[in-house]
């Protein structure tokens, strides 16, 4: 399909990318393009210019700190996370990445893109909130750190401003994590998904049921407590061609309980 006319630049550093974004309103960063190119075809997005982030080495790669903290460059592809020896320090990351779409999309799609597109059906937003990740956002006036819980502000909207970029994702250590979903076909779009972390305080986060990931705080990890905690937040999920709101609400209890079960069943090390 023919896209609308668009300008293109391929900077080599984050600073160059930031000054290009500041140069022109209607500029948009292009990460893996596995969402953006398609929404541009449909004219659902029509940026005037694209700042291609694929030529910026400093935005790629995964580092494992001595305390077990992972620092992930947002332009790291989901396939690179799956193959990374470092990322195995938090096993849930690669496990969830391998459930995203298909080989081609995983080869090109990036961690940062999955997060910054803030599609409520994406896999990584609830997961990163559950594991307590922190996002570093760079802009004209320097860097700031945003907890994952505050990063997602609405459907397709994040804390990253028009002249800013997500520059780093920091994931603390931990192994007792779980993720469960009911997707449309194997590894397809999620109807409801849930991530859980049982490293210390139990955190459960639901995706697909609201504009942003919803945090649930069960009093205990048993199935009844988790289900009760999900009911207590009185979700009002959207209805669409794949599922009614009522069905999503019913599924929320199920996937939350499964994610918690998976997290608590895992060994600490």
């Amino acid at each position, binding site marked *: 399909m*023919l896209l609308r006319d668009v300008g293109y630049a391929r900077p080599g550093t984050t600073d160059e990318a930031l000054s290009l974004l500041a140069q022109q309103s209607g500029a948009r960063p292009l990460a893996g393009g596995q969402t953006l190119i398609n929404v541009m075809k449909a004219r659902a997005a029509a940026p005037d210019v694209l700042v291609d982030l694929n030529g910026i080495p400093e935005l790629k790669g995964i580092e494992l700190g001595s305390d077990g903290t992972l620092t992930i460059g947002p332009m790291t592809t989901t396939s690179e996370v799956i193959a990374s020896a470092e990322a195995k320090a938090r096993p849930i990351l690669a496990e969830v990445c391998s459930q995203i779409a298909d080989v081609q999309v995983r080869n090109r799609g990036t961690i940062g893109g999955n997060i910054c597109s803030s599609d409520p059906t994406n896999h990584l937003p609830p997961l990163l909130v559950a594991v307590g990740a922190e996002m570093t956002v760079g802009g004209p006036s320097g860097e700031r750190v945003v907890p994952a819980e505050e990063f997602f502000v609405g459907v397709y909207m994040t804390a990253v401003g028009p002249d800013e970029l997500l520059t780093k994702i920091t994931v603390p250590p931990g192994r007792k994590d779980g993720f469960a979903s009911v997707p449309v076909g194997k590894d397809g779009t999620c109807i409801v998904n849930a991530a859980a972390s049982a490293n210390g305080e139990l955190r459960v986060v639901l995706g697909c049921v609201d504009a942003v990931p919803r945090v649930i705080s069960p009093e205990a990890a048993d199935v009844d407590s988790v289900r009760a905690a999900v009911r207590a937040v009185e979700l009002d999920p959207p209805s669409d061609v794949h599922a009614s709101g009522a069905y999503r609400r019913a599924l929320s209890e199920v996937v939350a309980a499964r994610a918690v079960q998976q997290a608590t069943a895992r060994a600490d090390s």
Partner: protein
Amino acid sequence: MPGFEESKRITVEVNGTTYERDVEARRLLIHLIRDDLDLTGSHVGCDTGNCGACSVILDGTLVKSCMLLAVQADGASIETVEGLANGELSPLQQAFSDHHALQCGYCTPGMLISATALLRENPTPSDDEISKGIQGNICRCTGYWNIVKAIKAASGQEVGE
């Protein structure tokens, strides 16, 4: 620092041949391959990144060429279905023929490219690994069984009737 460009002169190597072309920034890679380079083996199926008929190997990595801009491939080396046969069918292509892994053939170029990428990474895949490897390619004729069989046979493993 490079500024914004509406079009750009790019160089790509496709199946060992180097091409130089002026392309608009809005041009998708699949259209460069099909319309500018006249390599029409790679197909446009859904144009939404679902069907995989446009799959190519870009610098060793399997991608869907309808979800990339042609300017992003500047300097890259691309493999398409036209590069598989060298006078005669490749073992993978022959296996597709032997095992009736195609009917209408529309998905076949993408299937062959995905299977090529899979076998490079995993020379003896299990049935499950093959299914996962061609997950991004949709076939509406065969029900996939014969495609999985053909890929397994091409890897030198025994397949049932």
